[in-house]
Every structure is written in C-alpha cells, then in structure tokens.
C-alpha cells in the first residue's frame, strides 16, 4: 500500500521532471535532477522558450486505457502547462474513430492555431487532418502517421522498425556471447494487423539475421495484460526450452511475466518494449528474466506540443540551422538495461 502510493508519487515526480526537461530548463525553476540530463536533449541555446505570441493548441488522442497512451496525454498536458503562451485545448480521448473525427472537427471550428493529433488510425483520420490543414491549421502528427503528406505539417513519432532492431541486437549479442547456436527465439507481438507491429517484427528479424539467427515462433497478444498472459502461457508450453523472448509491449508484459513466473521458467533472456516503470524495476532487480526493454518513449508527446508551439509561432528549432521546424522527426529506440536503467527511471510510465 504505502509502496504503491510512493510509486505514484514517484511517477508524478518523474513526469513532472520529464516535463521540465522537455520544457528546456531555461526557466528559473530549480532544475530537475542533474542525473537525468543525459536522458533528455540539452536545452536549446536560443530564446525559443521565451514567451511569444499566445497560441491555442488543440490535442486529440485515443482513450488512455493503456499505460503508454495515458503517459502521452499526461506528458502533453504537463508540457503545455510549462508555457504561459500556450492555451491548451484537449478533447475527450476516445477509441472510436467516428468520435475522434468529430472531436478534431470541433477543434477546427474553434480555429485553434495548431493541432496535435495522435490518431487511432492514421488512414481513417487522414481526411479530417487534411481539412484542418486546408483550414490553415498546422497539424502535428504524433506517432501513427497520416498516409497523405498534405495532411500534416510535421510528423514526430517513434521508430517501430528501430525497436525491433534494438531488441534483435540485444538478443543476438547475448546469444552470440553465450555461444548458442540454433537458438529458440520467441516473439510476442502486439496487435498483429497494425503496421507498427509488422515494422517491429521486421526490424527484429532483420537484426537477428545479422547474427545468423531467426525467430522460431511468434504470436500476437492484444496489448492487454490478460491477452499477454494467455499467449505467453501457451507459448511456454509450445517450447520447452527457450533462449530468448521479445515481448513488444511492456503493458502486456505484466501478464507475460506473470505467466513466466507461474511456469517457473528462467532459462531465457527476455526483452520488453516501450519502457514502462514496471519493466524498468524488473530490469533493475536483476532477478527477473527481463533483462532489457527497448524504448518507444511517450515523451514524444511533450516534444510534439513544443513543436506545435514553434510552428504556430513561426519559429524554427534553435539547434538546427533551418528557419522552420522540420517536416518529420523520428525518435531513436534506446535499449534500457541494468547498467543504464537509473537514468531512464524517471521517464518511465506506469502501466
């Protein structure tokens, strides 16, 4: 109980810290813990954080029934609050495409200065994003990309292929070091039909190939704890000896780890995905099969809000030579292990 409360307090502190970092630390606030400086980019040199023209930023994202998405919404809001010149207008989060379209339409009608949209499905929200752009509202497309480049001003998101590559390299290297030949490598995906899942799997397979390894079996769970548990239970039955496992998503990973513990298996190394606080604590403990997780950080929402502000104010990014914000920004997927988990802890999100 007390531990849980502490955890929550810690998380809030972590998010606040992340937001501060994202805000660039140029304010007079006492800076966040210095140890975390490496986790976030160095503050911009120019005066981008000085209050400028007042801008209204609309924000729409899926319902926060998943730790990562929840962190997206929290990060966006926390960052917006850091700026006195941002009027933040979030709309009710929803998993219903139909509702998200009307929510975005209402933001267009309110003539916001910029929109940050994490669409439930890029294909299906493309049309309304196009409308926004045509109405002269720059759209910052967060994570799930709109197929039509006319539909957005700037895209920022994670690197799904890169996640797979990072996980593949970690596993490949571990197994090579141990001198394992012909390893049994198991993969638990998220929702198999999503392009992001296919990208993750492709990156994983490609990276493993450079070590001469391949995936023995893969199954999809559905990003929930329960499905992760079910799929892992059966996969552990299917393979009496496993050398390595990659689970695409730390939220479903809670269920996967429960299944592994129940089965009493510890002969393999497991890698997670996204970088949740739970996963980081497992890694930190050193006693878990979970040895690493590859990031797909929800801090991208903080960055998206900052970008929206810059675009709306007609500024550029001061670390770049360009006069305006770039068209697309892909975040790198980093590998969190016991060695570096300390500096990622405060960016972790709660499942």
């Amino acid at each position, binding site marked *: *109980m007390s*531990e*849980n*409360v502490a955890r929550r307090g810690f998380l809030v502190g972590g998010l606040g810290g992340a937001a501060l970092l994202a805000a660039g630390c140029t304010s007079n606030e006492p800076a966040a813990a210095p140890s975390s400086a490496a986790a976030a980019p160095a503050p911009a040199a120019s005066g981008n954080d000085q209050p400028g023209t007042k801008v209204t930023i609309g924000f729409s994202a899926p*319902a*926060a*029934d*998943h*730790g990562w998405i*929840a962190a997206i919404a929290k990060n966006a809001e926390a960052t917006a609050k850091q700026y006195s010149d941002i009027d933040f207008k979030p709309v009710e989060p929803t998993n219903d495409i139909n509702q998200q379209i009307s929510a975005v339409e209402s933001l267009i009608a309110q003539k916001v200065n910029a929109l940050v949209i994490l669409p439930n499905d890029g294909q299906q929200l493309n049309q309304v994003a196009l409308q926004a752009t045509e109405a002269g509202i720059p759209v910052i497309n967060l994570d799930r990309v709109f197929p039509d480049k006319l539909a957005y001003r700037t895209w920022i998101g994670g690197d799904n292929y890169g996640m797979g590559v990072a996980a593949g390299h970690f596993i490949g290297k571990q197994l090579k070091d141990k001198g394992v030949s012909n390893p049994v490598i198991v993969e638990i995906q998220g929702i*198999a*039909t999503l392009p992001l899942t296919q990208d993750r799997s492709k990156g994983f397979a490609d990276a493993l190939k450079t070590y001469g390894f391949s995936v023995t*079996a*893969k*199954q*999809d769970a*559905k990003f*929930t*704890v*329960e499905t*992760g*548990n*079910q*799929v892992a*239970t*059966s*996969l*552990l*039955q*299917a*393979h*009496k000896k496993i050398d390595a496992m990659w689970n695409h998503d730390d*939220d479903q990973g*809670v*269920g996967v780890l*429960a*299944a592994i*513990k*129940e*089965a009493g298996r510890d002969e393999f190394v497991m890698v997670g995905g996204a970088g949740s606080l*739970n996963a980081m604590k497992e890694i930190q403990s050193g006693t878990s099969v979970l040895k690493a997780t590859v990031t797909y950080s929800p801090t991208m929402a903080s960055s998206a809000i900052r970008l929206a502000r810059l675009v709306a104010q007609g500024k550029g990014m001061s670390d770049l030579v360009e006069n305006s914000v770039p068209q697309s920004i892909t975040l790198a997927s980093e590998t969190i292990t016991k060695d570096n988990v300390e500096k990622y802890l405060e960016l972790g999100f*709660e*499942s």
Partner: protein
Amino acid sequence: MSEPTTDHRAAGVAALAPTRRLGEMRHLGLLVALAILVVVGLVTRPENFATTSNLVSILSLAATIGVITVGATFVIIGGGIDLSVGAVMALASVWATTLATQSYGPWVMAICAILVGTGAGLVSGWLIAYGRLVPFIATLAMLVAARGLAQRMSDRRTQLVQPDNAALVELSTTRVLGVPLLVYIFALVVALGWVVLNRTTFGRRTYAVGGNPEAARLAGIDVRRHTMLLYALSGLCCGIAAILIMARTTTGSSTHGDLYELDAIAAVIIGGTLLTGGRGTIIGSILGLLIFTLITNLFILNGLDTSDQLIAKGLIIVVAVLLQRRNLKERAP
C-alpha cells in the same frame, strides 16, 4: 429427477425428458469433436501436447472463462442472456485491486470481488425481473456501465496486486498434485453448478422458468424472484472469475474480460443449451468451452495465425447449431 415436486410438475417434466436424451447425444458429438482435436494435437505436436504441463496450462486458461460459463449456462437455461459478464468481471477485479481494498489483505479483496460481481448481477436481475427490461437491454446497459465504472475507478490504469497480497497470486502459482489451485476452484464451481442445476429445487425451477414461465408461475414458482437470482448467480461467477484473473495476471484492469460474453455464450450454445431457454447442461457448456480452449492451444503450439483461429471458432459455432437444429427437427412431432 426422480420424484416430480410441486414446482416443476407443470412445466418441468414435459421439457426435461427429451432434453436429457438430446443432451446425451450432443455430448457424444462434443466428445467426438474434443477427441478429434486431441488427435490433431498428438499428431502435430507429439512432444508438447500430451504433457501434464500442457494439460494443466489448458485448464488454467479455461478456468476464468469457465467459471463465467457456469453462470451463463444458468441464465440461458432460465431463458435469459447476460452480456455483461466480461465487464462485470473487470469491474470486480478493479474494485478488488484499488488501493483502499488492497490495504485490508487478500481475503477482503476476494470477498470484495464476489460482492461487487453479485451486486452487479442483482442490479441487472432486478431490472429484468421487476423493471420488466428485456435481458438483452438490461445486461447491455450493465456491460457499458460496468466497463465505464471500472475505467473510472482505475483511472484506466492497470492495478498491480501488491506484494502484501501475494496470497491471491499464489492461487495461480501454488500447485497441489501439479495442478494450480485456481483449476481446483474452477472444478469446484463446475461441480457445485452441476449439483445446483440437477439436484436442487433451484435447478428444477430454472428449467421450468426458462421452458415456460407462465406454466412455472401457475405451478407456484416466484418467477420474478427466481429470474433475479439467476442474474445474481451469474454475477457471483463473474466475481469468482475476477479473483482468478487477478491471480493469473497479478493485476486488476478495466480491459480484463473483453468479449468474454461472446466466448461464454458461444460455449453454452455449442454445449447444446438452447438460447430460447428451458434446456441445457453444465457439462455441455464446459465441453464447449474446452473445445474453444483446445483450439487456441493447438494454434499456438503449432505457431499458426490467430486470425485463422477466429475463423475456426466461427465455423464450430455454426456447425454446432446446425447439428442441434437437425436433432430438434427429428424429434419434432
């Protein structure tokens, strides 16, 4: 059913006799289907399928939804339907894993889950029996509302079972004779369900109310009260299932039990229970459920795509219902 008692003299007897014969026939079909799946398992994965640990894992997978299926069987035999089972289970799991509840220990959590499940069932049952709402509507409303309430309570977060309450998780990790405790709970619920349905007045009344409510009323059964209790029973099963899912996943979450209503109803139908009520068996439902679980297991053991698994399940539902209809036609006067 040896001696006819007052309450089912009017409605029960007439419906029961042919049902039992039909039931046996259908069970035979289900057993054949199960046997075929077992053979497929033995042939495709000889080294993995027939191991104790795989069988235990199949039963563990089946346990949660199996407990819910027992409750659903009662409701459907009683002529109703409960669409809210998955959502009520999620709500019960979330309620039990809230911080406040967790600080009182695992027993309080378990009792809380059961009370919340039963309470939700009572509300649906009251709306149907005394509020005269159609079961489909009342439980649909409960599905939506319970899911929403679960999301509110948990703030849509996954709530971990705290280490202090590890006893709850141990239902899943502690094994007796190599079988996890939660499988025993599942078996106990099935056995109790069978006894209540086949050996008690409550069971006989359930068949009577589902078969012909008017006749049941004339025979002196308080049909409304009985209907309400059926939904409470279903809710109770959801509460027990919530305990099992907390044990298995170490969490309470508003996403638990998604589409369980469909799985439970499908298992009951495959098991030979008529959606119109009045006929059906617990054993049939459990066999139906095991067929589903076995298919999932076989697909994962063989590394097949889960989309094809849905197609296979759909086909099985259709075939099962077609077979039922043929049986009924043959027996129609």
